């Protein structure tokens, strides 16, 4: 670790620090000796915990990013965002009587979804570049498989929820769409056949070792 790395100056949560240019903004805080515990999670960009607001030196406007995935840059300003409380939408898959009722149930759980005013707030803010607004629109129309497929990479960071003036919780709309798709429509025959064989006791295990 002897070689001299180039350094950059960044401002994180109001603290001006000078750090090696190879660090993420979380590593930069730690490197500079500032404690940071809350808002740190997987450190691989999939848990959605370390939400930061980033302003770059020569770029207009701000962007929402994941702190563990954001490399420090000269003149960058970073603010860690507090995580919002979970939204109040509540549902239980077992209480949806059958797949014909999913759409009705959806509108009961997410009544605000059809109020979407197409402001693009959710889509703009998404750090995973998901077309969030399109997903909400498709779910409102009952096209759940299509809607859910847009949310494959969603990390549930809730930034779209924060960005929605109608309090729609678009990521949870997307997750609802994904869950009903699996719950009502995944019936793999290879799995079902295997479960049946196990139920009939045809596949017991010999702990001394099998037919290798």
């Amino acid at each position, binding site marked *: 670790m002897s070689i001299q790395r180039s350094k950059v100056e960044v401002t994180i949560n109001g603290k001006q620090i000078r750090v090696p240019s*190879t660090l993420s903004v979380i590593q930069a805080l730690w490197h500079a000796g500032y404690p940071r515990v809350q808002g740190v999670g997987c450190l691989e960009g999939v848990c959605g915990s370390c939400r930061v607001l980033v302003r770059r030196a020569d770029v207009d406007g701000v962007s929402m990013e994941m702190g563990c995935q954001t490399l420090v840059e000269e003149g960058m300003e970073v603010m860690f965002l507090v995580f919002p409380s979970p939204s109040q939408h509540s549902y239980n898959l077992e209480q949806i009587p059958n797949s014909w009722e999913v759409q009705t149930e959806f509108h009961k759980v997410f009544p605000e979804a059809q109020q979407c005013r197409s402001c693009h707030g959710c889509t703009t803010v998404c750090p995973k570049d998901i077309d969030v607004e399109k997903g909400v629109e498709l779910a409102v129309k009952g096209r759940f498989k299509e809607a859910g497929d847009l949310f494959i990479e969603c990390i*549930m960071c809730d930034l779209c929820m924060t960005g929605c003036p109608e309090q729609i919780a678009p990521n949870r709309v997307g997750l609802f769409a994904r869950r009903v798709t699996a719950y009502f429509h995944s019936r793999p025959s290879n799995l079902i056949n295997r479960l049946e064989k196990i139920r009939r006791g045809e596949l017991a295990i*010999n702990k001394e*070792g099998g037919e290798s």
Partner: protein
Amino acid sequence: MNKTTPNGISYREALDNYQANRELPLPEPALENRQLLNHFHPDYIEESRATLQIGPNKGDPCHKQLAQLLQSDSRINEADLAGAATVKTDVLVIGGGGAGCAAALIAQQQGAKVILATKLRLGDSNTIMAEGGIQASINKGDSPQTHFDDTLKAGHHHSDPNLVAKLALDGPDVIRWLIQQGMQFDLDEFGDLLTRRAGGTSAERICFYRDYTGLEMMRVLREAVYNSGVEVWNYSPTVELLSDDMGGCSGAVLSSLKDRKYIQVSAKTVILATGGIGRMHLNTFPTSNHFGATGDGLVLAYRLGAALRDLDSFQYHPTGLAHPYHLAGTLITEGVRSNGTYLLNGKGERFTDELQARDIVAASIIRECQEGRGIVTEDHQAGVWLDTPGLELRHPGLLQQKFPKLMHLGKKTGTDLTQKPMLIYPTLHYQNGGVVINENGETSIPGLVCVGEVAGGIHGKNRLMGNALLEIISFGRRAGLVAAERRKNKRSSQLSIEHLNQLRRELTHSNLSLDCEGPLLFPEYAKFDLDSDYIGLHRNRRSHS
């Protein structure tokens, strides 16, 4: 971050030597597996081994860094508990990953009152990062027996066969349960589950969802928990277990990072689902683990008298990202190798069968680097190539279709993985051993149940890809069931930390320092113990010093 001598071929030169390969023959192994492990696997580094001096595993070998924490003093004493509120529940689940969620959901569904307390946020876990998939023998040529045999063999026959038998037989029903929670799997055109092969197995047995299996699982389970009657306490690290007068576990002491106070929870059953130890950075390795993976559960359980096993065995996943630095340690799924991606050294040569068990592949990579055939970057990171361009050549389009997360990672590092290989080096990934459990996750301490990575016995000395996700759900459900049943039992409701007095006596008696405090809670570099925000949670200093 690693100890490799930076002898090797420079990044630039290696890139010139590199070319995407259509086909390369399997190389002849130069060393026998046992020899390879002995010389190059980090578990066998002599200076890293210690012998435990106190507790149920006194006399057993253990990794030095882990031994230090297992033989550490508590973070609290009686004075810290003065005025702490007490909350009662049937079941206290500690840990917010897949195992904790599965246990909480099942216990609650069976009618128990459940509190799930987690150090960070619900879902901040290793589960969410699991990419490869989950094992379940569903194919015609496969069976639970073959799954059982493969698991035992990969673990070098150190596993508990009773646990492995349950695991293998549970597989298919675990997949069904996950689908019922709303989890998607990749299916073929007829709606059948697709499978791929894991290194070290004899059949295609991995069910998956792209390279997002853990993310898909975790977001579904988290949603299920939030929509259930389970009470979730985020940002509430557990600092100690509570004991009763019968040698049992009667609850836990939690700290709230929001209120900066201690709370006592009285529970009929405590389910520890705290995960692993990656953030202890054993042997100064980088890790693929999440921020909270600091081995807390092992320390808590050990103090209460629960025996541990295989404490000297850890998994270094062969393919961690070695460059760039800010993403070092990030995991690259074994799925990429399952699909036929080669590993190449700095000369552009294939040097191992990429689909052997993980310990063998990791040791082979370390050997290449130590013997000067690795690639070394300007900032002294050593590694070997993961030949994704070669895979693209043989199977055009497969990378984008099956590994969107990996392609996204490439983009972040400014690399088009269909054109340029990635530099990889083994990353500390998994704790193979843990607390000794029975088929329901019960430990030798009444009232204390352990599931998931904190528990030991299933993986022996080496874990197969896809068996961790299976274990957390299989044993998580078992633990939830047994905890729900036990809520009807009468038992002592005494809440005491008397076992800490015993611990301190033993530490003093063995001339061990009382200066190190455990559990670790957070990696040292996050400076939790210096953070003035949490001053109320730093221990009232004893007067002895």
